[in-house]
């Protein structure tokens, strides 16, 4: 291991990501309506992971809305930036050591799978009567770990991997890969956005 690799965190060890799928424009639903929905997901174990609790922050301006807290990840009907959407925030790679978490591409693909699965469930949710739809092409990917440098090199590496994961997930702009660009202020977590 050379000096650089000993000191700089390798993206291959990065597990903490946020992925937000923005709601379609026609969506008209109050965040509080997700409280019973997420409670039922816990009771009926609708996701293949340990789900623990529901947290209601719908009273906070442009906040995280209503959260479904799991051990590996937090799901939220998120209202940040004033843009509703499904947020999937991965916290741990349960049961996997760093050798076992797969490549960066694999992890991003897994993020997409988890987020899209939650979107599918919400759109089919009887209590919401089809009033929520997600635009699966409008995504925000964020590195939720400030140990990793939010520099251009990281942004480029991540953007490339994200585009490949999107293509694999069938998210394209016609025949081309969707455009991915960096957004936000330098002090914010490294954030990429499609479209």
């Amino acid at each position, binding site marked *: 291991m050379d000096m*650089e690799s*000993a*000191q*700089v*965190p390798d993206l291959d060890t990065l597990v*903490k990501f946020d992925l937000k799928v923005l709601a379609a424009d026609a969506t008209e639903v109050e965040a*509080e309506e997700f*409280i*019973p929905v997420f*409670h039922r997901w*816990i*009771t009926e174990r609708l996701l293949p992971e*340990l789900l*623990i*609790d*529901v*947290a*209601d*922050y719908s*009273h*906070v*301006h*442009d*906040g*995280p809305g209503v*959260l479904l*807290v799991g*051990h590996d990840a*937090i799901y939220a009907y998120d209202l*940040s930036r004033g843009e509703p959407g499904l947020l999937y925030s991965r*916290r*741990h790679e*349960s*049961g996997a050591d760093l050798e076992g978490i797969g490549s960066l591409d694999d992890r991003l693909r897994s993020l997409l799978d988890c987020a899209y699965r939650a979107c599918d469930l919400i759109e089919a949710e009887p209590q919401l009567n089809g009033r929520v739809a997600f635009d699966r092409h409008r995504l925000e990917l964020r590195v*939720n*770990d*400030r*140990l990793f*440098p939010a*520099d251009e*090199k990281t942004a480029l590496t991540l953007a490339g991997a994200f585009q490949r994961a999107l293509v694999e997930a069938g998210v394209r702009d016609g025949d081309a890969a969707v455009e991915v660009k960096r957004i936000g202020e330098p*002090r914010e*977590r490294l954030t990429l956005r499609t479209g």
Partner: protein
Amino acid sequence: MSQLTVDSAATWKERLEGRVPPHLTEEIDIFETQIAQKRQGKIDDKVFAETRLRRGVYGQRYDNGQRHDGTASRALEYPCGDLTKGPNTVWDAPGMLRIKIPFGAMDAEQMEALADLAEEYSDGIAHVTTRQDIQLHFIHIDDTPDIMRRLAAVGITTREACGNSVRNVTACPLAGVCRDEPFDVSPYAHALTYFLLGHKDAQDFGRKFKIAFSGCEQHACGLANMHDLGAVAQVRSTGNGTRRTERGFRVYVGGGLGAVPHQAKVLREFVREDELLPLAQAVCRVFGRLGEKRNRARARVKFLVAKLGIEEFTRLVDEELAILPSDDRWTAYLDDLSITDEAPTRPPATLESGPRAEGFAEWLGSNVQRQRQSGYVAAAINLPLGDLTSAQLRALADTARRFNGGLVRNTVEQNILLRHISEADLPALYEELHAHGLGEPGASSLVDVTACPGTDTCKLGISSSRGLAGELRKRIATSIRTTGVLADEAVKDLRIKVSGCFNSCGQHHVADIGFYGVSRKSDGRTIPHFQVILGGQWTENAGSYGLAVVAVPAKRIPEAVERIAGLFVAEREKGESFQSFIARVGKARVRQLLDDLTKLPTYLEDRTLYSDWSDPREYTIGDLGVGECAGEVVTAVEFGLSAAEREVFQGLLELDRGATEAAAAKAYEAMLQAARALITTENIDIGTAPEEIVGEFRIRFYDTELFFDPYAGAKFANYLFRVHGDAETNSSEEAHRRIEEAQLFIEAAHACNQRISEIQAARVA
């Protein structure tokens, strides 16, 4: 890689090297080692629980691995399996981190750090508590050392934020700018905070110990009357015929809310500023020595004061004061009372007339008050349920930098105060705050409902205090907009406070209208209720406590509030306060007013009452757990022995990496620490010099044969004497042997402590 910089590091420990003070680095490293030891089963559950609590690492609802989903309790199968972080507390279960903010003072850099941590490790929310702390929820214990490092790098500690210790020292958030105070109490709160932090006389309590400072008697900002120790600023004439005055405090002791509220008693009418720290130390000594340790429900200092009487308690404090070893720190801080000063960064200027943003006038009327410094005001940010997002916290840091140099104070009403704002800047300030959702009017008014975490995250929560508080905020805001009864001027400044259980973290006893969570059975099921508390007094530092009138189903509480407010609006006499009104009309009248609300429908008639606010599950008290508010009773000697075990563990690590000298030194240090821990049972003032420890150990435990093993006799004690006479070695074999001997010595110390406890128990019996 060209971007390689100092900031590029694989761990936060590396990244922050040199930015965390050495003593905090060591403390946090020790905690990280304790986490590793616990993972290996090398620390007892109870000891580890109290250890983490004293680092602010608290439990959270469902951390026993069970959750009731409304029909049945189900296991939460965490990946950690049987690993626990305390009795009946699963390792992987999310927990809460309480972050001490002494007297609520934060700067911009600290706010930004908190914002980062809330995003990366918590749920994106920073929660302001009723004791001016910040809490983060859904934290994994493995992340806590890094969080502590990042906090330490900006001057914040979580040490003794929970557990049986001196909690966050609170103070009036207007200290230094208030028009009624004789002087700024901030530097005194600061001094007492750091004097008692980790102080040896504050490590052996049976329960927590809370301290508050107020600048005056008449207002509520500091709540000195409801604290274990309260200090209210006073000045008096020096009495020698001059106009000179001296600073001091009226000191109260034995106040507290909880299930059984007690009004504090005056310990001293006037304590000079130079006498304050030793007095607090003496009170800690009396509490540590005589406070209840076994019965947790009666272990706060208020029970000790009640049991002994204030005269006897005072006599004991005087006795301790007389024998306290002198400490330079008692008065050293008086040379720099400006340490907490905040200088305005903008010139003072009056607010000129002109076009204003919508909502400005209302906000100005409710959230802004003039300071004693001419041309400046303090502006409150009304936080819903004490919550704000990372983005808001970061925006607030920017705003504070622009308008007052970057400083704020958290308030006991779960708000944040911006001080030293030039009056002329108010329109611009409002526009910035409003843009980030921080410009809500109604701070410290009826709509500004206070609530503890309740069933949202607290293991002791019975009813949803936050759910109710959120609903009340909505209804009151609607009533104000539509000029309903709650818009009436008479009720505008009443305070509503909600606790999820009788323990009063929401301070319901001192509200005009208070509530605490209870449950009632009906139709074979359980219904969430709140007791309605009336007659409490928020002003005069929480001058009197309210009493329960009647229990009302949780879902009917908003209706109860409207009726009580309506009665007050309709029948109050001119100038009559709410407390006087309740005293005049009587609680029986209020009970009668609410009587129909207490009649319970069957489940089939109305299911809505059978669930709580903001929680659709059918209500149950099946999720109630064992709270950690009380901490675990772990004596100072047990902590000392645990520290010795940690030291020997470090010695093992040194041995593993071939550092024999360091390993042997750790073994010796471990034995010294274990011996010292035992000595503290008889001499709390024992120093840390090896000669003193070994000498005292010989007299108290060797000559008396108290340390002797029933079978091996003096064998283990001799390990210490031998190594003390020949501490240094570079022999790997010798280092190995010393590690083993240190472990046996510590075991013998545990056994000795057990024998002493049994002897003491037999004497009591």
